[in-house]
């Protein structure tokens, strides 16, 4: 913790967990998708579901989907701006079992592409992305992050870490998850710097890797 964790962040009110955190959840989903989707289903669970209108959670998440930062005053008018940008969205109140009280699940779609991101706002504007397309991940968005979706086969993790090492990229945290042996799997790696697009393309070309995406800190 440093002093700007105490004095800051500069943000649009009213609540660091319900507004700033919600905006960051929208933004991380958009960055993982790579562009503004045509459609977004936004499911709100727990306290998010109960207080979404008064806290501007809806506007915050939509603003995040349009890549607005937590201190961007356009967050206030993001519903109108989303309409204007052609984003079709809908909010649903749900109950996601075994999740943090402030959890949202965003399903983004366009032209047959689909991405489902579950994340929680854990206080002070900090977030935790917990699931991507049903695979457990677990990262904060506070650092450049590399997400790899792949088939569970021996050597995939070694291939990824070798390429990162060759590029001089240091891994700060890493989490790997698989649905079952030989099934769908995912890795989330928090890095000290963002991998360049050529490296991400190189990762994508590896056997068994279905999707690789690198995002900056949110």
């Amino acid at each position, binding site marked *: *913790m440093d*002093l700007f964790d*105490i*004095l800051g962040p500069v*943000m649009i009110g009213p609540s660091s967990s319900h507004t700033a955190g919600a905006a960051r959840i929208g933004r991380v989903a958009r960055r993982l998708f790579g562009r503004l989707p045509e459609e977004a289903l936004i499911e709100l669970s727990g306290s998010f579901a109960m207080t979404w209108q008064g806290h501007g959670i809806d506007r915050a998440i939509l603003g995040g989907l349009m890549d607005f930062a937590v*201190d961007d005053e356009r967050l206030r008018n993001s519903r109108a701006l989303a309409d204007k940008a052609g984003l079709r969205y809908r909010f649903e109140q749900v109950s996601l079992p075994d999740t943090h009280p402030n959890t949202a699940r965003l399903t983004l779609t366009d032209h047959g592409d689909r991405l489902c991101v579950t994340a929680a706002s854990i206080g002070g504007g900090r977030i935790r992305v917990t699931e991507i397309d049903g695979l457990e991940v677990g990262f904060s968005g506070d650092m450049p992050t590399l997400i790899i979706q792949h088939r569970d086969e021996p050597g995939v993790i070694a291939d990824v870490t070798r390429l990162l090492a060759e590029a001089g990229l240091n891994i700060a945290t890493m989490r790997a998850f698989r649905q079952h042996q030989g099934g769908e799997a995912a890795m989330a790696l928090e890095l000290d710097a963002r991998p360049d697009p050529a490296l991400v393309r190189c990762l994508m070309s590896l056997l068994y890797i279905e999707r690789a995406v690198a995002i900056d800190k949110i």
Partner: protein
Amino acid sequence: MRQNIGSLAELVAYAEEFGIEEAARCFEPDEETRAQTDARMLALLPVMRQSVEDGMDPALRSMSGLTGGRAAMLKDAVTGGKTVGGALLGRAAARALAVAESNAAMGRIVAAPTAGACGILPGVMLTLAEEYGLADRALLPGFYMSAAVGAIIAKRASISGAQGGCQAECGAASAMTAAAAVVLRGGSCRQAADAAGFALMNVMGLVCDPVGGLVEVPCVYRNVAGAAQALAAADLALAGIACPLPPDEIIDQMKAVGDMMPSALRETGLGGCAACPSALRMLKTETEPD
């Protein structure tokens, strides 16, 4: 951070060896030069000033309609000589209310230490700057001290209403502000720690009970109370009155009390003010037109 300081006692000891400004700066980010940190800190001031201005708009309303426009009323009453607390207290209170109301209306604010308590520090600091003719740079030692106190409270206890009640949000903000005010008036680090101790001691157990779960009632008015009691706590310390209990022990008890608090009194909007029979009716009528 050059120093891994975990208590106000350690902060005071460090200040006695290296000076109060060095102590206040102990939570500077490692990777920045001092000039960079100063520039980032100074950049918060225009945001604070703008949030005061935004909040002083008589026509301002939050999304629920429960708050907004009251800061303008308070300012008019202070300017018109209709208040009892004197001009300095009145101006600090009106500014604190303005920032808090701006926050409730989705304005741009500096969380200090949280969004819900964001009015207290700027309300008092900007008023002291005006009263004593202090340039922005002269406010820096106060802001650094406020952050050091806030960081120590966050380390030992919590600055989250959901975890520790309002004592952890407006209480922490008030303690941070009291310490900052002492520094601006030339007090010692020990006096700043005492002021923080007084501020926390006097709101021990304050619950977080937002009507409808919204950061509005009583939150915006608790910002006024937090600013007023920061000034009172600073005055106690500046008079040379030592906090009768060690401030670190008060922080630890604040944590213990927060842990004992039922969840109905920790930001869930189920107890305290939120449970007043009128609270639900108020919410219903205020939100219907939208």
